[in-house]
């Protein structure tokens, strides 16, 4: 924070300029006048503002209507709130500061504050595979999954239709009516359809598919399920041969009054349990559940269930070690180089500096991928050329992989430390050093008692933020080792170089390699939030303490 190279930053809280009522009033008066003139003159700025707001309102109203159509009331009300807020702020004369804050604030609210709060909410639910949606959706899914052909029921003459890419069925009822429906639209009677000897030959708005077209989309046709009515209990029409359709009715029956599922085949009654599943008296559960609040279950699972707690502790210890060692190694190397080059008599320092910061100027993901190839056991550059054909398992041995991760991070991170140490060294006042010399301090003593403390004051906040950054350095770990080598004894897909954030990524299942468990993943995210937040808070207080020394 104290190099002559840097923009001069004020301490955020300490340096708030004093606020006097008089200056505030005056400022407000002037600004209000200016704003008033602005809004009544129809100046160019006002027209631009009007056009922009009209566009935003139009888009907003579109979103509101779409949300209404989908029944997403959370989105609907948030959008209404944002729209009303925006229109108030930009047409009122009283909300001047908000005119500047609102655009950023709305993004911050939705994509940062909301998602953090939502993470907190999901952490207390069992959201994940098997508990993906609401109870109503789960009931519908269960009814559909358990549909069977009604024994001995009539076959309806069936024709496969297409509307663009979407398939539809047309059937002829025993009364001779033609009924048409698709996956999302239940059967409807269509009077205008043409029928020839119980076979539908034309339906307005649809194309009748021929044999060839049906064969080409055979599996789509046999998978298609056209609901008989909007009530899933009425069952659906399905076909095997594309000529005759049968009514399929669910063997499950949901009774709203008792809130229970009954299996018509076995007579078993399932009632909802606390985990968001239907459960029978003997403890059997149905496959599809819904999400419910589960209290602290996810946290208990993370810390109590040995399947998760054992790897969690290992991963946690490695995360702290990785972040701390990364900071220490990069800082030491960077500091050493900064000291070496902090001498004006060395020629070509600019060239050295430019070449040395190259690793830092390369996007981190490229560097990690590059090293993953260079460290390859059999074909990599490091083993083949630098070590003369050795086959050292850099990325597949637990300890070597840890060493490799730290080594690559040293390469990536030392230029940053070199830069900030150079800046800090150059900003140490010369008279302080001179005073130490006059007082009789030798080189080492000056270094220990004067240079080093001043250097640490300047770099401490950056070291701590570097620690926080490496604590979540997902890209490096994921691209270099993918967290591997795997723990031999763990059932969850975790490995020796996994850090907390990559552990959360594996457990969440968003990459499709494991069962999804959003609840547990969010709970772990919250744990990391707490750790990182604490570190930052300590860092912040420490910074202020250190500054008071001056």
């Amino acid at each position, binding site marked *: *924070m*104290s190099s002559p*190279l*840097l*923009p*001069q930053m*004020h301490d*955020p809280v300490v340096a708030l*300029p004093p*606020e006097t009522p008089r200056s505030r009033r005056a*400022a407000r008066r*002037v*600004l209000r006048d200016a704003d008033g003139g602005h809004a009544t003159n129809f100046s160019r*700025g006002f027209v631009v503002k009007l056009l922009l707001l009209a566009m935003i309102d139009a888009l907003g109203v579109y*979103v509101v209507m*779409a*949300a209404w159509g989908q029944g997403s009331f959370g989105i609907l009300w948030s959008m209404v709130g944002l729209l009303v807020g925006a229109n108030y702020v930009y047409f009122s004369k009283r909300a001047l*500061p908000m*005119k500047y804050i609102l655009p950023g604030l709305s993004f*911050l609210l*939705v*994509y*940062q504050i*909301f*998602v*953090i709060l939502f*993470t907190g909410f999901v952490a207390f639910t069992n959201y994940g595979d098997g508990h993906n949606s609401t109870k109503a959706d789960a009931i519908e899914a269960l009814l559909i999954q358990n549909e069977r052909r009604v024994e001995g029921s009539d076959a309806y003459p069936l024709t496969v239709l297409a509307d663009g890419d979407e398939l539809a069925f047309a059937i002829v009822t025993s009364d001779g009516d033609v009924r048409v429906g698709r996956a999302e639209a239940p059967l409807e009677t269509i009077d205008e359809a043409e029928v020839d000897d119980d076979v539908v030959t034309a339906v307005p708005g649809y194309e009748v598919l021929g044999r060839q077209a049906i064969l080409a989309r055979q599996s789509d046709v046999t998978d298609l399920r056209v609901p008989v009515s909007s009530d899933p209990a009425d069952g659906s029409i399905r076909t095997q041969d594309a000529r005759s359709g049968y009514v399929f009715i669910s063997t499950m029956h949901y009774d709203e009054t008792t809130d229970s599922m009954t299996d018509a085949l076995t007579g078993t009654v399932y009632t909802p349990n606390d985990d968001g599943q239907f459960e029978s008296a003997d403890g059997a559960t149905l496959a599809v559940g819904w999400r419910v609040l589960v209290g602290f279950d996810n946290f208990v699972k993370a810390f109590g269930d040995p399947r998760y707690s054992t790897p969690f502790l290992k991963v946690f210890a490695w995360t702290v070690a990785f972040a701390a060692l990364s900071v220490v190694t990069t800082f030491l190397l960077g500091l050493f*180089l900064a000291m070496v080059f902090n001498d004006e008599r*060395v020629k070509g320092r600019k060239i050295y500096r*430019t*070449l040395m*910061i190259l*690793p*830092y100027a*390369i*996007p981190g*993901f*490229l560097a990690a*991928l590059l090293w*993953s*190839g260079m460290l390859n056991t059999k*074909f990599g550059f490091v083993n083949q050329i630098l070590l003369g054909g050795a086959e050292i398992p850099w990325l597949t041995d637990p300890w070597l992989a840890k060493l490799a991760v730290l080594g690559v991070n040293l390469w990536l991170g*030392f230029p*940053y430390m070199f830069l900030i140490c150079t800046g800090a060294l150059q900003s140490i006042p*010369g008279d302080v050093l001179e005073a130490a010399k006059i007082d009789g301090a030798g080189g080492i003593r000056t270094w220990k008692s004067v240079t080093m403390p001043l250097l640490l*004051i*300047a770099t401490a906040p*950056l070291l701590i*933020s*570097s620690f926080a950054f490496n604590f979540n350095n*997902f*890209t490096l770990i994921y*691209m270099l080792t993918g967290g591997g080598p795997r723990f031999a004894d763990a059932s969850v897909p975790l490995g020796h170089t996994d850090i907390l954030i990559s552990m*959360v990524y594996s457990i969440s299942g*968003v990459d499709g390699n494991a069962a999804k468990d*959003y609840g547990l993943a969010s709970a772990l995210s919250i744990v990391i*939030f707490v750790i990182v*937040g604490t570190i930052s*808070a300590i860092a912040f207080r420490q910074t202020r303490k250190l500054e008071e020394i*001056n």
Partner: protein
Amino acid sequence: MAIETVQVPRPSVVPAAPHRLSRKRWFTEIGWRHVVGVLAVIYAGFPIVYVLSASLSENGTLTGSNQLFAQVSGLNYAELNDTLFWTWMGNTLVIAIVTAIGTVLMGAAAAYAFSRFRFTGRRGGLTALLIIQMFPQMLAFVAIFLLLLGLGNVVPLLGLNSTLALICVYLGGSLGVNTFLMYGFFNTVPRELDEAAKLDGASHAQIYWTIILRLVAPILAVVGLLSFIASFGEFIIARIILQSEGNWTLAVGLYGWVSQRLDANWGLFAAGAVIAAVPVLILFLFLQKYIVGGLTAGSVKG
């Protein structure tokens, strides 16, 4: 704070001209520093030399790339045309540039309000910003995924697999950090300047666009640059949101090449990496001075 306001010359312990030193003394005092420097440059540079050589190698495999500059051919670069590389490059540049511009515009506006106006909730807002920037948005990736899943049902353009949605997420994440950085810089512009303009009849918008923004240009450059670099290399959120191959960014696409068939795709990756590194490298080298300032002012490369 005191330390920042003191401008002092660098310590110059030995005023004597270097050429008067004896050879031995020259080496013990200065020469060894060059040795360290050369070693450090080799350490920093050899992977970069290697990737250059691998990208120019003819056979395009990991094994075949080990002999430095054994052949020099543009084959790997030509082969990039048969892949989606240029699409990914385009996507990445669009995302990074739009995010950088958006961050600068919205962050600067908010910083201006916090720095220049006095209103109720100002202190609370600043404290809130300070707290928010302690929580990395990346950690909430599960919630981001679920949010976009829901938004996508209503407006597909804001849902999964949309570039625009990714930009929105990046904007939300970078504002917390960067607004604070800019706020500090805005405070260093003397208030007398805008008060004088106010007395001359300038509106708040005129003061903002024509006076303040010009004076804070250095911090705008830093924030824009850091934001560009951060979104250029961001992986985890891009990977979750962008699902179809044609929408991927470089980070997602190149990771795919290396993770699937490391050996066979190595030449392609090396060529892609060289091209992908160029924009960031150029920005970095030209704006070195600004970046050093921005870094030390409290933000870290992402």
